[in-house]
């Protein structure tokens, strides 16, 4: 359907007037009292002020985000298992192809880095990859939660919480260490133990990368003049790219170190 030049001009004028009115309204109407940027930044790192009540104890919003993300992923997996997988065909359609590509990528990553033992590793890096990617993108949705002080906060990425990042790093190192002991015996254990800095580096890499994105996003959203156009660029740079990069880095590191620690050594 094509519009005439006159109709196009009228539509453009109406659109511009509405946008200008909204802009004036945003500027003139007083907003909710905001916490200072310094406090917001500090809370973004430490999660000391804005805490959420959970079963009688106060937890950081990152933990709530982790539960929500996991719940969504489990619901998604159950729905796929019940409704999609039984209808898989020899020649895959679009959604089946996406699932097969994801599973194939992570199982291939595991097989490539740990050719001898990779069944468990494939499942682990698949889960870790899905969790890191989805939980990083999760902050874009801006799901709100109410803090113990009655303030509304947007749920952050779970791994932007230091506790979530440490849990991820330590658990990945645990998988590498335990698999090294089981499959690589003493040599595998030594291989894993000599990289004792791995859990710290993994944890703080995740934490630093995701926190930096969260802080920049907070900073941008905090000031009204920066809230137009710029958020879309920031969201892509600090959220979508972080999701891809951190997923790749974490799963790659876990695969490589897992492969080293469980490697079968032949006697010379």
């Amino acid at each position, binding site marked *: 359907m094509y519009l005439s030049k006159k109709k196009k001009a009228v539509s453009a004028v109406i659109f511009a007037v509405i946008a200008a009115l909204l802009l004036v309204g945003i500027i003139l109407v007083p907003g909710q009292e905001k916490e200072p940027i310094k406090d917001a930044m500090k809370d973004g790192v430490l999660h000391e002020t804005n805490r959420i009540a959970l079963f009688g104890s106060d937890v950081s919003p990152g933990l709530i985000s982790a539960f929500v993300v996991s719940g969504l992923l489990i619901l998604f997996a159950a729905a796929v298992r019940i409704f999609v997988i039984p209808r898989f065909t020899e020649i895959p359609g679009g959604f089946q192809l996406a699932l097969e590509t994801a*599973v194939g990528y992570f199982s291939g990553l595991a097989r490539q880095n740990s050719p001898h033992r990779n069944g468990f590793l494939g499942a682990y890096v698949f889960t870790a990859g899905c969790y890191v990617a989805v939980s990083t993108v999760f902050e874009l949705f801006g799901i709100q939660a109410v803090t113990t002080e009655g303030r509304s906060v947007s749920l952050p990425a779970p791994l932007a919480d230091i506790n979530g990042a440490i849990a991820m790093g330590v658990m990945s190192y645990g998988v590498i260490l335990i698999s090294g002991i089981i499959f690589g015996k003493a040599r595998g254990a030594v291989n894993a133990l000599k990289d004792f800095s791995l859990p710290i580096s993994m944890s703080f890499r995740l934490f630093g990368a995701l926190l930096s994105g969260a802080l920049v996003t907070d900073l941008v959203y905090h000031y009204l003049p920066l809230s137009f156009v710029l958020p879309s660029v920031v969201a892509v740079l600090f959220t979508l790219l972080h999701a891809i990069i951190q997923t790749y880095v974490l799963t790659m590191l876990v695969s490589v170190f897992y492969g080293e620690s469980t490697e079968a050594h032949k006697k010379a």
Partner: protein
Amino acid sequence: MPLNIDIQQILLHMLNFVILFAALWFLLYKPVKKFMDDREASYKKASDEAGEKMKKADDALAGLDGALEEKKKQAEAERTALLASAQTACKEKLDEAEKRAEQIVSDARAEAEAIRKKAVSQSSRDISELAVESVEKAVMTSAEEAFETFLNTVEKEQNHE
């Protein structure tokens, strides 16, 4: 703790991830991987079967090539044998022809010799007869002339008397 690190929350994050891991493994990763592996296995099986059939076809072709080669060798041997046989037969025929030719020549020579001898004999006989006849003729002519002369002489003498 520094940086607001909380062991309890770390453990809660871990529990959350373990539950997520178990759920995703059994609900998503394992069934999709199994489907992909089964499909790959079926494709590999089909590929192996096709390879096996191809190998059989190649073997059959190689067998046919061998049989063809064998037949070629047999045909070559038969050709060589036939050629040798034909050469032998030809040589025999040639020898026989040569012998027959020699015989014909020999017979012709003998016949020619006989004819020559016969001719010579006949010629001698004819010559002898001719000679006798000539002599007889000559003798008869001389006698007649002598007798004539005698008669003439006698007559002359009678006339003179």
